[in-house]
């Protein structure tokens, strides 16, 4: 076999979603040589299926649909002349500072000075009988099918989870001509923004709080669902079961950061439930425990696209500065983005992540190479 080709870049970015795109735009505009890698045939990450208008931060695409933000960011990145490598998966990390890349039919290597990992997150499943039947789909999967490919996943849907994703996707299902039988929520109150919930209620969709899914019905695929009430400890209350005729059960029950690459690099990982589970430890500039390796977006803790974009800007600007560049512009970008992040995280839906991020400095227990260390005071005797 021929030796795989090796190319070089200053800043490699893994993931072309909102975080990776913003990191690339900022770093390339400041003057760094940037290579962005994504396993999809197009840029934008999960923005390409988000038809709703964004809320929130004044300067960051408030009132713009996710799909349009993806197009804007893609155009901005391409205008910088950054190298974009699509249909390509990072399948391994090698020493020193080298990524192994696979695209259909070929393997090649990319050496970098700085690495920004913006791999995002994957959808969670939850435990219930028959949760593996075809017809039990992630909320994001349903969004991809109907908003990217224009295909209805089924006729009638039970949505599990009333966070913003559950509420928004329910509304989008109705826009696509699909019936939503109900939204169930285990907590005693609706998880997402009131405005999203109100839209559904006006359309007559019941949002059942203190309810959960007990089982999916069907042999080869979903033909129905059994839901029931839960008590304060989330235990099902016997006798409250109700059967719903649905052919899709849509799960909007949270996301888990995709940390595999960071784990292989040797970044110090910490478990923080508020951030979605295992994440790479990072400082306020998104630098991980391994020198030169950064994170941004959902992989650094589950939040939303607006925070992912801001984290991308910080990571991109800081990675540039750490290469030895002098730039008051980079410092300004970092300062502004941090201010906006703080303001979003003060909001009702940012506080959970803010708590998680606040724990991070106290967990900085690793060697100068970035590997986790057990402090003497913690050693079991």
């Amino acid at each position, binding site marked *: 076999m021929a030796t795989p080709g090796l190319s070089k870049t200053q800043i490699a970015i893994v993931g072309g979603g909102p975080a990776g795109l913003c990191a690339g735009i900022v770093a390339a505009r400041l003057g760094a040589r940037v290579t962005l890698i994504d396993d999809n045939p197009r840029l934008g990450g999960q923005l390409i299926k988000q038809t709703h208008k964004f809320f929130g931060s004044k300067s960051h695409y408030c009132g713009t649909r996710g799909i349009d933000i993806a197009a804007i960011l893609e155009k901005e990145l391409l205008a910088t002349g950054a190298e974009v490598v699509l249909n390509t998966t990072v399948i391994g990390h090698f020493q020193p500072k080298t990524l192994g890349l696979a695209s259909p039919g070929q393997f090649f290597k990319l050496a970098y000075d700085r690495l920004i990992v913006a791999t995002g997150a994957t959808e969670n499943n939850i435990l219930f009988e028959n949760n593996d039947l075809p017809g039990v789909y992630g909320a994001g*999967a349903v969004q991809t099918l109907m908003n990217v490919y224009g295909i209805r996943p089924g006729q009638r849907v039970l949505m599990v989870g009333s966070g913003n994703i559950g509420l928004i996707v329910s509304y989008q299902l109705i826009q696509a001509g699909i019936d939503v039988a109900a939204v169930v929520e285990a907590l005693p109150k609706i998880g997402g923004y009131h405005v999203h919930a109100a839209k559904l209620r006006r359309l007559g969709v019941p949002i059942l709080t203190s309810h959960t899914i007990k089982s999916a019905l069907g042999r080869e695929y979903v033909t129905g669902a059994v839901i029931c009430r839960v008590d304060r400890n989330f235990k099902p209350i016997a006798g409250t079961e109700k059967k719903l005729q649905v052919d899709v059960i849509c799960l909007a029950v949270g996301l888990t950061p995709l940390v595999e690459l960071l784990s292989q690099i040797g970044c110090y990982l910490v478990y923080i439930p508020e951030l979605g589970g295992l994440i790479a430890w990072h400082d306020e500039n998104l630098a991980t425990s391994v020198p030169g390796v950064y994170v941004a977006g959902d992989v650094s803790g589950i939040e939303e696209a607006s925070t992912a974009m801001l984290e991308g800007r910080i990571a991109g600007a800081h990675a540039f500065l750490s290469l030895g560049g002098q730039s008051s512009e980079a410092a300004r970008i970092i300062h502004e983005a941090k201010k906006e992040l703080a303001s979003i995280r003060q909001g009702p839906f940012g506080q959970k992540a803010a708590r998680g991020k606040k724990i991070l400095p106290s967990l900085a227990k690793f060697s100068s190479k970035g590997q986790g260390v057990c402090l003497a005071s913690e050693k079991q005797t």
Partner: protein
Amino acid sequence: MPRKTCKQPAARITSHPILQFPRGPELTFYFEGQPMKGFWGETIAAALVANGVKVFRHSERHKRPRGFFCAVGKCSSCLMIVDGRPNTMVCVEPLREGVRVERQQGRGKL
């Protein structure tokens, strides 16, 4: 928008308040030997769902039916045999003219 008059399964969205779906050229592919129609630019999984196919494979130990789950190439629920190649994630595999798609039983054989 002018549209071919050939019969389309109801799963395809033709009118939407926000989105338009300009579909590429029509393609023929084979699922378990049966010819089916899809469009250039969509994935094999999307074309299968549009044709009413929900079960993509059966699991190794308990022979449980499996469909897609994440639709973005992360979860491995949708592994099928594509042109004889097992363990292909059809949720991210582009549909091609004449491609042969089969349900995978358990682990794939090379």
